[in-house]
């Protein structure tokens, strides 16, 4: 009975292991993408002991961009490494291949391992000469096969170019956060900007307004609030926000321009005055010519 149970459990476990390992072997490689693997095999030339993948140095960032670009052009990992070795010398390769000057790095470990195996096996089997040789050859062959397999397996990773993610997850996350803490102006503002990016202007406006209420003296928030109202087709509603900005900061030129234009177009008094003040402050501004045209047009 016990033997039977043991046998069954062994058979079950072995079957489970086989099925599992087989599925894993057949599954697509998930060990990072190819770009990262290539970057990991290159030394950051302006750092000490860091790979291109791990360094925050600007040169490393530029090298990562070049790797991405070349992979998209369809170059192989080996070609890209060679491209870098041509420009930065062999020392840029963290694992130089035997052909690229790294033969010593392959030879030394092999010699160390072979020497150890020979030493041990000859001590064990004094007299029979072929045994140590055979065992050494087998061990070396095993190790070299393992190296070859790991090196050859390397470029099998996939390359998925980093695509810009939409704002959709951001909106969800930020909504939840705002719901639990609606008194946080930073959260309100972040949600408003995420909604703004997603094109949900009406909802974005509410959160800009909320952020603005929480930080009444922040002219940047108030200005964002005003612009979203304008883009949402409600320029008149933007007037109070813009007036508040100018009360705090009378020389806030974007607000002068925007409020001046809104008032001018609405035919309200004071618009021209604001636009003239804007021109005084920013005569070089690209919008200045348009404003000038607008004003002369109005006069005629």
């Amino acid at each position, binding site marked *: 009975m016990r033997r039977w149970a043991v046998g069954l459990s062994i058979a079950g476990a072995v079957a489970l292991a086989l099925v599992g390992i087989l599925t894993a072997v057949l599954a697509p490689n998930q060990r990072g993408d190819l770009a990262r693997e290539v970057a990991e095999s290159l030394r950051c*030339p302006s750092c000490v002991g860091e790979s291109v993948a791990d360094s925050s140095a*600007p*040169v490393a960032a530029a090298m990562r*961009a*070049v790797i991405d*670009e070349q992979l998209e052009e369809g170059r192989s990992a080996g070609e890209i490494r060679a491209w870098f070795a041509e*420009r930065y010398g062999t020392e840029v390769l963290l694992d130089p291949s035997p052909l690229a000057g790294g033969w010593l790095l392959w030879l030394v470990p092999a010699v160390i391992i072979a020497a150890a195996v020979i030493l041990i096996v000859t001590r064990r089997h004094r007299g029979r000469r072929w045994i140590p040789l055979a065992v050494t050859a087998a061990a070396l062959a095993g190790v070299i096969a393992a190296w070859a397999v790991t090196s050859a397996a390397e470029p099998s990773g996939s390359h998925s170019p980093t695509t810009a993610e939409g704002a959709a997850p951001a909106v969800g996350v930020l909504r939840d956060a705002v719901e639990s803490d609606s008194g946080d102006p930073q959260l309100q503002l972040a949600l408003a900007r995420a909604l703004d990016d997603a094109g949900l202007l009406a909802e974005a406006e509410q959160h800009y307004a909320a952020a603005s209420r929480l930080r009444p003296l922040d002219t940047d928030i108030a200005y964002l609030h005003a612009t979203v109202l304008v883009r949402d087709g409600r320029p008149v509603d933007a007037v109070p926000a813009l007036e508040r900005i100018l009360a705090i900061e009378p020389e806030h030129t974007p607000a002068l321009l925007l409020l001046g234009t809104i008032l001018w177009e609405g035919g309200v008094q004071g618009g021209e005055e604001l636009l003239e003040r804007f021109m005084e402050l920013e005569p070089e501004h690209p919008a200045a010519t348009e404003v000038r045209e607008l004003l002369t047009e109005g006069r005629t």
Partner: protein
Amino acid sequence: MRRRGARAAVAFVAVAALSACGPAVDVSQPAAPLAGVDMDGRHHDLAELQGSVVVVSVWASWCGPCREEVQPLSQAEQEWGDDGLVVLGVNFKDHPDAAQRFVEEEGATFPSVVDADGAISIDWGVTGVPQSFLVDREGEIAAVRFGPVTDEWIADVVVPEVQG
């Protein structure tokens, strides 16, 4: 066994003695292509400058030592420009406004090709900024300078190339 130990010791001493030498410089190879738009929108191409000696200087506004080399480079261009010296900057991974401010503050007179993603600089094998290359009249790299360009470097390396 002991002989091997002795040899290792010799290697050690040699290593200790040699540890101060600088990076090896690969010289006289054809310069990589360098073409692009400068900060004012004008187009520049190194290939069109064949026949001139060109100092290609890679810089960025976020790099402190880069400020030191603007003066020497601008001066050299004024002094030797008539003899065929051209200075061409490469603005490496920079913010346009910050780069513009840098040029104004330091009074740079030479144009700089904008290399926003750093691809040109990497193609040139730049290891860090500032770094400069001296390209001879045949379009080959005659010298590489790591760190800011100094008046001495111009006098010792650039001027002979211009006159020679």
